[in-house]
């Protein structure tokens, strides 16, 4: 385009357009990365929303922590959101080792080891069984397997309360009632549906050819499970462990119904502390006890957050 032509064309409207453009970009020509404002509307919206939501989600935790650090008088006066004026760890000490239920005044500490004792075999056993189930369902389909699996999924919907009685009878007939193993068995049974589902979906997503190759290589049911499948299923194991740890650690009903006082898990103590009202409710102790009880699953979460999403992706999405 020649100069003269350009001048001809340069009517007021294009002129104003160029001026407006020059305002924003002195060099006129877009070059290199598109300029992005740090505080674009989009970013403000995204981070703003997330921040608000985070506050909503953190609020209860904040209330719990703050309250657990206050003394009772302060709680009675102030509001639950205000930070403690005088930080005291007494509620924590009390919750852990002094709070009374009935005649026992040793707080949560009594239940902690019981919970661990229940947790470890229950988690190991239930996951071991569920993973084998999932593996058998995914790779060794036999007649009727799907039917049992459907019943299992049905079981996921059965309220625990409904099954309380039949299981009392079952355990009695098996002679396991009241023993730790009885409880472990119950956790295994009720953890089975959802974990089996996850493992089944996960193993289904493992390429079938891998399984076939192992069979040609002469590995049997267990050989393939232990040597091929197990080593490659870390993410789903993490998910199952998290779900089971959370469920079993937080369980109150089974722990109290199917064991004896000497085996009562921590949640029973928590229930006792929270529900034993001695005059006024000691909110600070309750909160401290609550946090202490939730600590184990929370820690498991914080440690394994990333693997959780990965595992969920593998176990829940495909299927």
């Amino acid at each position: 385009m020649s100069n003269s032509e350009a001048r001809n064309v340069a009517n007021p409207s294009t002129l104003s357009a160029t001026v407006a453009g020059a305002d924003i970009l002195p060099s006129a020509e877009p070059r290199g990365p598109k300029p992005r404002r740090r505080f674009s509307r989009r970013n403000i919206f995204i981070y703003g929303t997330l921040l608000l939501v985070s506050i909503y989600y953190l609020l209860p935790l904040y209330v719990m922590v703050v309250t657990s650090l206050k003394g009772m008088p302060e709680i009675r006066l102030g509001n639950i959101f205000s930070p403690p004026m005088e930080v005291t760890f007494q509620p924590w000490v009390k919750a852990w080792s002094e709070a009374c239920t009935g005649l026992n005044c040793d707080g949560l500490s009594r239940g902690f080891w019981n919970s661990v004792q229940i947790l470890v075999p229950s988690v190991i056993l239930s996951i071991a069984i569920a993973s084998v189930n999932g593996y058998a369902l995914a790779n060794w389909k036999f007649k009727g397997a799907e039917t049992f699996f459907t019943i299992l999924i049905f079981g996921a919907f059965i309220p625990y309360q409904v099954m309380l009685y039949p299981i009392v009878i079952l355990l009695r007939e098996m002679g396991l009632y009241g023993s730790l193993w009885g409880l472990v068995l119950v956790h295994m049974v009720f953890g089975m549906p959802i974990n089996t589902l996850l493992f089944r979906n996960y193993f289904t997503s493992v390429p079938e050819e891998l399984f076939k190759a192992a069979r040609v290589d002469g590995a049997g049911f267990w050989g393939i499970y232990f040597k091929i499948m197990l080593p490659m299923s870390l993410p789903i194991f993490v998910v199952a462990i998290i779900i089971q740890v959370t469920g079993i650690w937080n369980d109150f009903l089974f722990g109290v119904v199917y064991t004896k006082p000497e085996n009562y898990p921590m949640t029973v103590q928590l229930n006792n502390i929270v529900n034993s009202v001695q005059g006024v409710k000691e909110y600070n102790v309750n909160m401290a006890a609550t946090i202490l009880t939730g600590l184990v699953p929370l820690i498991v979460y914080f440690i394994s957050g990333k693997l959780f999403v990965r595992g969920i992706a593998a176990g829940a999405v495909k299927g």
Partner: protein
Amino acid sequence: TDLEVTHWWTSGGEAAAVAEFASAFDATGNKWVDGAIAGGGSTARPIMISRITGGDPMGATQFNHGRQAEELVEAGLMRDLTDLAESEGWADAVAAPSLLESCTLDGKIYCVPVNIHSWQWLWLSNKAFEDAGLDVPTTWDEFVAAAPALRDAGKIPLAMGGQAWQRGGAFNVLMTAIGGKELVMKVYDEKDAEVAAGPEIAKVFQAAADAREMSQGSNVQDWNQATNMVIQDEAGGQIMGDWAQGEFQVAGEVAGEDYTCLPGLGVNEIISTDGDAFYFPVMDDEEQSAAQEELASVMFNAGTQVAFNLKKGSLPIRKDVDLNAANDCMKKGLAILDQGNTVTSVNQLVSPDTNTQIEGLMTEFFSDMNMTAEDAQARFADIIANAD
């Protein structure tokens, strides 16, 4: 021998009382293994029943007087204490025959009653009325009349917890106080639906509606939180059993000075012989069985009874005990007991099923201002008609 004892006594006064049993039992060379489960009977009972039917029973367990354990006894799961009772002469020592009767099935004794609890008390905060510039009322009607003034003073007239048993209980107290013993027996023992639908019960429902009105704004669940409102002088009063006494005691309040108690709501001085009892599931182990008998014996023992009931705020089940240490309110109760102004507890008269239905109805009634007394009465009559 270690003996596990389960119960749901976990509040301050209760726990102190249990400690008395425990130390007395420990003194016999055995060991009390405490199996407290907080949250009241509704939390604890399923656990106890499961344990017993699951074939792994505890050494002894608390139940309320009445029909809660009936079937367990029928199923042969409970220990027969008749021999022990005869050798120790329980029948002669017991304060009211009905106490032992409720432990008896087919002429055999299966439990140890450990206290007498009566429901029919109104607990009033002296300070609250003072603040409102009123005299402490002496009857239910005065109390109702004082309610508006209390409100104006920023107090809640009647403290009431949200749990079903508290509401059902309060209703039954009103019935006993306003309608009298006869009416209670007609309705609950004879299960006369016509009476239940009749004008006398209508009066009771009217009173309940008043109570409902007065209890607006007491946002607590547990009974002792409600009691605490009275102790803190935030509420004018509370209808609650004599166990509330324990809370006042723990809080260091003095009967007559800081608080006032009105048995039978000051209207009709009758008290019921509710109470707790301990059952002893059948156990295979010889030693344990022996320990069970020892515990039963310890619980019935006069000395333990005094120590226990003083702490618990309930009345002892023996008439041959001396309660010098008893406070004002307890003495009132003992006096009524002496006069024989007692009524059988509702728990003993109706099945837990019916009881739960009544409690359910009252829970609804007390929290739903839109439910008229008439509607509620109609449903009540229906429940009585189908009661067993």
